[in-house]
């Protein structure tokens, strides 16, 4: 029986790692710009599809680097041409423009990659399974946990231990004052958006060997990411990580313990979080 629970804990961690990658960028641009980017799920989808195409040419490891870079570039372009302008208009235009982008991205993916789900074969080095505390677990899933943990650690250090990170935290807390001491917040927005897009792209390419890539994932990946963002609190790496762990825990252990309610649980968690602590569990905002 311990093997069973070990397995489920690992499953939850692996799920959390993916959720973290998708949600981190969403959360920080949410907190920094107040920008609700519904197209974030589309960036995740693009990461998966671009990764699959690159891997078909050059192999898994190149795809693991190239796909996030490509998605970052797409994100930066989107921000410069469109979203940067919309970010100033308030929540409704943001929701709608990014919703429009979801439509467009989904159709473009259908045109380029077709309707049949695709998967990515990971490197042979990551095939196979290992025994952990009596449980047999796929190596690739451990790899996903490691990537998620490594990214979370790197981002946490970057945000909390560097000057750039300090500037980011200052901008999240009080953008006006940050500008008044000379921080160019627009550049910060662009940087954060690009980085967030890259992380979503990384999430997509990392997920592609586990879940088949399909044009529906722009929408299906979005909702859990939004929920992670709201539960964890916006603009905060630790919050995104905590939110990802909570949501993954609810999904995995909900499926194990309360299977009949598992479809509703995650929305119920969102509702509870909004009612109980609408500002999120870990709040980045101090002065505002």
């Amino acid at each position, binding site marked *: 029986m311990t093997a069973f629970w070990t397995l489920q804990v690992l499953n939850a961690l692996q799920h959390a790692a993916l959720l973290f990658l998708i949600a981190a960028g969403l959360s920080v641009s949410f907190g920094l710009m107040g920008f609700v980017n519904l197209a974030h799920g589309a960036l995740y989808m693009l990461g998966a599809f671009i990764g699959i195409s690159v891997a078909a040419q050059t192999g898994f490891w190149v795809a693991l680097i190239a796909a996030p870079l490509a998605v970052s570039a797409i994100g930066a372009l989107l921000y410069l041409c469109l979203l940067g302008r919309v970010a100033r208009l308030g929540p409704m235009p943001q929701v709608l423009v990014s919703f429009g982008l979801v439509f467009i991205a989904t159709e473009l993916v259908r045109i380029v990659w077709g309707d*049949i789900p695709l998967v990515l074969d990971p490197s042979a080095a990551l095939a196979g399974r290992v025994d952990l505390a009596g449980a047999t677990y796929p190596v690739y899933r451990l790899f996903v946990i490691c990537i998620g943990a490594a990214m979370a650690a790197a981002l946490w250090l970057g945000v909390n231990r560097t000057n750039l990170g300090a500037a980011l935290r200052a901008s999240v807390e009080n953008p006006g004052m940050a500008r008044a001491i000379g921080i160019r917040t627009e550049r910060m927005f662009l940087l954060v958006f690009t980085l967030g897009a890259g992380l979503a792209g990384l999430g997509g390419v990392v997920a592609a060997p586990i879940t088949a890539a399909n044009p529906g994932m722009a929408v299906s990946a979005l909702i859990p990411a939004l929920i992670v963002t709201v539960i964890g609190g916006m603009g905060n790496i630790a919050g995104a990580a905590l939110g990802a762990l909570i949501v993954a825990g609810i999904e995995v252990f909900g499926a194990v313990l309360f299977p009949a309610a598992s479809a509703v649980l995650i929305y119920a968690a969102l509702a509870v979080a909004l009612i109980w602590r609408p500002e999120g569990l870990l709040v980045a905002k101090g002065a505002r």
Partner: protein
Amino acid sequence: MKPFVFSCLLAFALPAHADTTVGLMLPASGNYAALGQDIEDGFRMALQEAGRSNIRVIEADTEADPQTGLTLARKLIMQDRADVLVGVVSSAVLGAVRDVVHQAEIPLIVANAGNSDATGKDCSAFITRVSFSNDQLNRPMGEWMAAQGISSVYTLAPDYAAGQQMIAAFSDAFTAGGGEIVGGEFTPFGKTEDFGPYLAKAQASGAQALYVFYGGADAVSFVKQYDSFGLRDTLPLYSVGFLTAPLYLREQGTSAAGVIGALHYLPSLDTPENEAFVDAYQKAHPDTLPSEYVVAGYDAGRLLVGALDSGAEGRAALAAALPQVAYTGPRGPLKIDPVTNNIVQNVYVFETVEGPDGMTHQVLDTVEAVRDPPNGCAME
């Protein structure tokens, strides 16, 4: 924009030049678009093969949306004066159009939607199904597995009507054959991309085998994840054959090896009819094997052509003639059960194996002429 739509509508309303007008109701966008494309390819193949030029096909993109499906069905019936409707992938769309079709007394050839009730308690003299019913595929599989001496099974399927129906049909047959369902789960539909938690539960259940129904992206993900957890040795995977159907097999690759399923058509069937069919299909689609959806579309076309060949004309005559058509096609002998208007066909139990040119299906057993019980169907 409106004047343009007007002129379009007027163009539609012009008297038909062809003898027979077919309304082809398939999703061209949304989740089921790939299935819609296959069905259309098969349907057009049958018409082309018959050399008939007097059949006019009007396409309607129903998506998977009942509202859109219904509006387009009404348009095809009333505006375009279609003689026959063909298609319908989603069971919800079939549910939406069922009453309209029945009341308008227009024949509908169902080329996919598997809701057992459509040829059961909701059956209609005007609705003929050439694809399959959920019961039809799962019942033989339950009986067959019980007969193989498998005593306990854990089941998984998405939590929606088709998933519930399939697992129920399987479970009934399997327990009637002496097996035991030791557990099972319905996974949230359209959200469960990670089956890890469920696979672990299945593994812990102590069942002898795992029986599942998944389609679309879930089918690919499920097989990949099942393989990655290394369950092949301890918990053999059985399924409704859609899991490792031709559409997904290429992506699943060797992960799908050893999966046993039941389906009404396999491209690897060794019959002259099927060989000719596969050859013809591959002329237009090189390097691609026809899926069960292509065949459903094809047989819908064959059924229509057969009814027309018998001299039927117009809705009522066609509706009466369609169930009379019987022939041996790519999937083997095929006829329509006059009691339910559902298809009577072979169900093939197969194993997914590695062949010389990639993955293929090897038939283990054939359950001949599977016929659904009336299930409350009473046609007036």
